[in-house]
């Protein structure tokens, strides 16, 4: 365990606390910048896809991890971002405006849905968002004049200021840049007054209200920020897949996003990124393992979804704090090496507690 000995208020507010963290983050960034030089082409595309998933997962983390509002329908905002971006581009809007428009539209829909939806909380909000995402998927399939329906919709090439960035490497750097921007922005937001209000609302609405936090406003704001970031990821995803069809934004994507934030560890940006990496790479890993399995199992479609379920179940049962919690334990183990005690992180015994009247 690392204990903080702050000598001033501002010290507690710093974005990165320790010099070695600066070095580690710098090394990671340098590695990511240099990676396309030695990665095979296939993996550049894969890593770009992981960046986009990280963005979507970060968006959901703001809402579910920090504000405690569970959304089982965030694929709807990915879909809105993707379709809006593709439509704006096809109408001849410049790329930057189009991305801003898609993000803004997604945020606006987030506001329109968030305002009434936030009246309900917990399980009910989960159901409203789930239903909303199903409705959006159906609308995308039916509104042929804009979305092309089930025939799909091609996404125009990526051109910024007359510069074609459609290639693998330029798109990789573009996604990386946006991801870094969003991570920095969210990390800053979370240590600001607004971010602390988010966490306050998550931990206790009554206490937050008593401290003068506008509970309803804070929830709606979290919904809007979350929808905007997820919409941005949708706009990038449109370029990655290059052809939009409603099936890509089904309930499975919503649930995958929830899996990412839960497996990553609720309430941490690092968790959102780690979860997105694990869930994003799982299908590839499974396809690598498949040849080793008996033929009649390997050929079936169900293995992937079974593994998703198994991984999620194991995390919920044995590591509710997710990959981030695992990482914190590992770091504590290294830092206190010969003196590490397992009980530092032991969970207290819990009893059944009714949430029926919340």
């Amino acid at each position, binding site marked *: 365990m690392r204990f903080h000995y702050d000598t001033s208020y501002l010290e507690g507010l710093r974005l990165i606390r320790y010099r070695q963290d600066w070095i580690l983050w710098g090394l990671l960034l340098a590695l990511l910048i240099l990676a396309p030089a030695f990665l095979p082409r296939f993996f550049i595309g894969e890593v770009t896809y992981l960046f986009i998933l990280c963005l979507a997962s970060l968006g959901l983390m703001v809402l579910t991890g920090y504000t405690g509002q569970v959304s089982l329908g965030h694929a709807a905002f990915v879909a809105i971002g993707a379709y809006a971006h593709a439509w704006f581009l096809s109408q001849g809007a410049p790329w930057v405006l189009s991305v801003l428009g898609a993000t803004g539209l997604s945020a606006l829909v987030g506001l329109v849905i968030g305002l009434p939806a936030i009246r309900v909380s917990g399980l009910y909000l989960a159901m409203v968002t789930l*239903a*909303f995402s199903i*409705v959006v998927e159906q609308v995308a399939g039916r509104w042929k004049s804009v979305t092309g329906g089930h025939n799909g919709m091609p996404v125009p090439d990526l051109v910024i200021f007359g510069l074609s960035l459609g290639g693998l490497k330029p798109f990789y750097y573009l996604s990386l840049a946006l991801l870094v921007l969003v991570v920095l922005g969210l990390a800053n937001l979370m240590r600001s007054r607004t971010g602390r209000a988010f966490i306050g609302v998550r931990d206790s609405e009554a206490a937050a209200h008593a401290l003068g936090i506008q509970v309803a406003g804070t929830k709606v704001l979290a919904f809007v920020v979350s929808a905007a970031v997820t919409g941005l990821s949708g706009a990038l995803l449109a370029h990655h897949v290059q052809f939009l069809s409603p099936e890509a934004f089904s309930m499975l994507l919503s649930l995958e996003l929830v899996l990412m934030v839960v497996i990553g560890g609720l309430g941490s940006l690092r968790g959102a990124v780690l979860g997105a990496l694990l869930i994003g790479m799982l299908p590839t890993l499974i396809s690598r393992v498949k040849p080793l399995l008996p033929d009649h199992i390997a050929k*079936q479609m*169900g*293995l992937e979804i079974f*593994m998703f*379920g198994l991984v*999620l179940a194991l995390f919920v049962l044995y590591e509710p704090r997710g990959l981030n919690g695992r990482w914190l334990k590992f770091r504590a183990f290294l830092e206190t090496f010969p003196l590490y005690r397992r009980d530092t992180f032991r969970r207290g015994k819990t009893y059944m507690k009714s949430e029926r009247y919340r």
Partner: protein
Amino acid sequence: MDAALAQLLQLIANGIAIGAIYALVALGLVLTYKATEVLNFAHGDVLMASAFVGWALIAGAGWPFWLAIPVVLVFAATLGWVIDRELLRRIAGQPQFAGVMLTIAIAFMIRGAVSMVFGPDSRRFEVPFQGRTQFGPLVINDLNLVILGVALLITVSLFWFLGRTRLGLAIQASSQNQLAAYLNGIRVKALSSLVWALSGAISAVCGLLLAPVALVDIGLWVVVLKALAALVLGGFGSVPGAILGGVLIGVIEQLAGVYLPDGSKDVAAYLVLIGVLVVWPRGLLGEAHGRRV
């Protein structure tokens, strides 16, 4: 009687039949929700798995329909019992969200396992109720009558069981206050597993009834989403509300399919869900919501 009215009545009759299935699924959901406060997202997948097991016994192994039914019921009940006893009990006391995530995980695992064992094709099996009966201007499939009858039978016997028997009263007591029930000598853990088994068996009935209407398919689990809409419309956590909501959702879907623009049949249930939760979260027969600090 003119044709428009006859069509309307026919639609309502069909809607009530399909709604009876929704009501039964919603009933299974509400039972486990009241007993353990877990909204069981795996309910639809237990249903789907039982339909597949039913297919394997009837069409695969050539068993007679009536012999296959009890076996499928026992299979689904065991599945529900194991899910509660081995998995959900471990997360008792954690936030409600943990239960949602765990049942989603179980749902994925069941779906994956069924798809690995049976493959992605849709199938069908023969049921003994093939004819149709004429009621004045209405033509009603015998199957729909059977569905309605079974749904009524289950509902009535469940009400009798919960309200009149010692065991049922114990279940009600432990769903109202687990600690108080435990202190009165009720075996809360065993009872909650029993409720899960019961809910599993009900979902197996739904699976077997739904299989001839829809096909035996991996996508059969979607019915759980319709049941959620039914629960919300009827008032969350209310048993009569679940029945009423299910029937209403069935009727609304049928009417929307004919009288509203193309495609609204698929989204009608979800729009109702959103609308009711936003405007009138209590639902038709729900308990009043209080906020405790």
